[in-house]
């Protein structure tokens, strides 16, 4: 079932949106640099994920509670993915609206169908689960998230990779990082 997005955007507006949304997503509050002790924690954690730089830049540009722990970091990462995925979904919906290429439209619609449950259920439930200490459930949700993103990825190959650009790829890397962090939580 295809969702027709409501937003009407001109091409120019698209460019502006693109330019203003840079990865990694930053919260609107002023960033609080990690304290000495925290910096070690971020480093320790990110080293155990497959994308150290990405992980590190997110943790260092987002404020955390005074006593950050592994759980807080996992939560931050999942919320970050949720923000990125919501953003990507809006972008996909905008593209669907503005393209006249039927094949591209179908591929994009398929991706939208992967991103919608991601944004509506899977990522929020992963975040809830982490908050409640249900790390097994959280881990399962994250692997579901990866499945949905991969399934969208498969729709675009080679030349037609253009429309989503880096977005799907970035979300995938973020999920890989979150998955690694949650596995650390599971190890206890």
């Amino acid at each position, binding site marked *: 079932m295809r969702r027709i997005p409501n937003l009407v955007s001109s091409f120019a507006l698209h460019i502006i949106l693109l330019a203003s949304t840079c990865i990694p997503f930053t919260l609107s509050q002023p960033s609080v640099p990690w304290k000495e002790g925290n910096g070690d924690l971020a480093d320790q954690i990110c080293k155990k994920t497959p994308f150290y730089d990405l992980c590190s830049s997110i943790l260092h540009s987002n404020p955390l509670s005074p006593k950050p722990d592994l759980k807080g970091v996992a939560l931050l990462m999942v919320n970050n993915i949720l923000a990125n995925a919501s953003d990507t979904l809006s972008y996909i919906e905008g593209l669907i609206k503005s393209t006249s290429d039927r094949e591209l439209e179908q591929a994009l619609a398929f991706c939208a169908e992967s991103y919608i449950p991601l944004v509506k259920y899977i990522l929020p439930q992963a975040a*809830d689960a982490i908050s409640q200490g249900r790390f097994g459930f959280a881990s*399962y949700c994250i692997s579901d998230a990866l499945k949905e993103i991969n399934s969208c990825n498969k729709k675009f190959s080679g030349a037609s990779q253009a429309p989503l650009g880096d977005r799907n790829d970035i979300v995938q890397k973020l999920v890989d990082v979150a998955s690694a962090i949650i596995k650390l939580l599971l190890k206890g």
Partner: protein
Amino acid sequence: MLSWQRTAFHFQPQTNWMNDPNGPLFYSGWYHIFYQYNPDSAVWGNITWGHAVSRDMIHWLYLPIALVPDTWHDINGVWSGSATLLPDGKIVMLYTGNTAQNVQVQNLAYPANLSDPLLLDWVKYADNPVLVPPPGIGPKDFRDPTTAWIGPDEKWRVTIGSKVNKTGLSLVYRTKDFIHYELSDHYLHAVPGTGMWECVDFFPVSVNGPNGLDSSVNGPEVKHVLKASLDDTKVDHYAIGTYFVENDTWVPDNPHEDVGIGLKLDYGRYYASKTFYDQQKQRRVLWGWINESDSETADLKKGWASLQTIPRTVLFDKKTRTNLLQWPVEEVDSLRLSNFEFEEVVVKPGSVVPLDIGPATQLDIFAEFEIEFLASKGIGKGNVGCGSGAVDRSALGPFGILAIADDQLSELTPIYFHLSSITSDASLTTSFCVDETRSSMAPDVSKLVFESKVPVLSDEKLSMRVLVDHSIIESFAQGGRTVISSRVYPTEAIYGAARLFLFNNATDINIKASLKIWQLNSAFIRPFPFD
């Protein structure tokens, strides 16, 4: 023991007995299925509600038991029931309890915590039961409440199957709060001679649109389906008709094909089916229980019994306007591995053609058949029906596929069409058949021929889709206009020894078959990965 009979992608618990599907619903990103479950044995008894969830209705994860018989009003069995999703987000579960006195009553339960997407824990209403058998209805003739639907008067309706003497019928109750009910003056419908109606289901279908409908939808572009599981024959019947909300009655479009005397939902081993509305993908989805057809001794030996079908979408057949179309949910495609295509394979009378596809125990088969009349033969006479199986040959059939067969054809299950003679207006009556008579060399398994008539329109080719999964075969003719589910228990045609063939046992026609066949992966159904 007998482990080759376990299915790879059909829902079944790890061990023990299962029967009716209960309370299916979609909530918060998860599909839920509950089921009649005996945690202690591979035969019916000690009935609880088992519970499983899935994101896609294929990859299921087992959860802890949801309801156990622990109060006087269900101590002798937590029997079947249905879920209703309320507009404010609440969930109401109505189910039949078999009381300490063996009286059938209806009970109310609801999730303990709606913010738990897995709906693990359930609470029973403190003042159950909410319904007891009304005057004139026997204490053992009152069970299986449906999903509720709301009328223009803001009252919910629930229908419950029953009987009076040999007349099968369905009672209607109206309620605002699911606690206080008023019995309707009329039955929703009644059909003499059909006996007790179990697992009644009542739902709208769109006459012109592409989607399923929420249970409360009504209007000029809508017809209503009434379905009953007949206790006396253990068959699921349905009829399409019109619902009158003014007095909560329903009449069939064709009284000669009324509930219980006309169309069957499935012409094979199939019972206690139930639909639900999937609001995520706007489909009406049908669950059906497939019992074992081997011996109880074998079930106890192997430690498990029964399967659910692959869930099916249900739509009104716009072409015939007299049938429903059932089709496996599209998510079954996610199991596909390698595929094989065969174009216009000619099969001469009395011959069998092997299809080289590798392992043949987990398959999704799409087949189309064309008939070539042999000039020398003229127009011969065909049989009417499936006869006593695929050995029963005539001019125009049988022809089809042989599933779960071994190389020597010592075991085989034909799934086939058999056409009757051409009548004066050049139309054919088409039978669609599944023949279990040679499915196994074991002596203690059921070996029936399942028979159905399927309407074939003049612009349609003969087509079938068949899901094969070790000991279950689900066969769909003409896009799901007729369906036959069957259980097979081969002793030779197991694992790597199972094969697939084309066959033509007609005398006067060649068959040209085109097939697309997928190997299907296991669904790896397992317990939910809790911490």
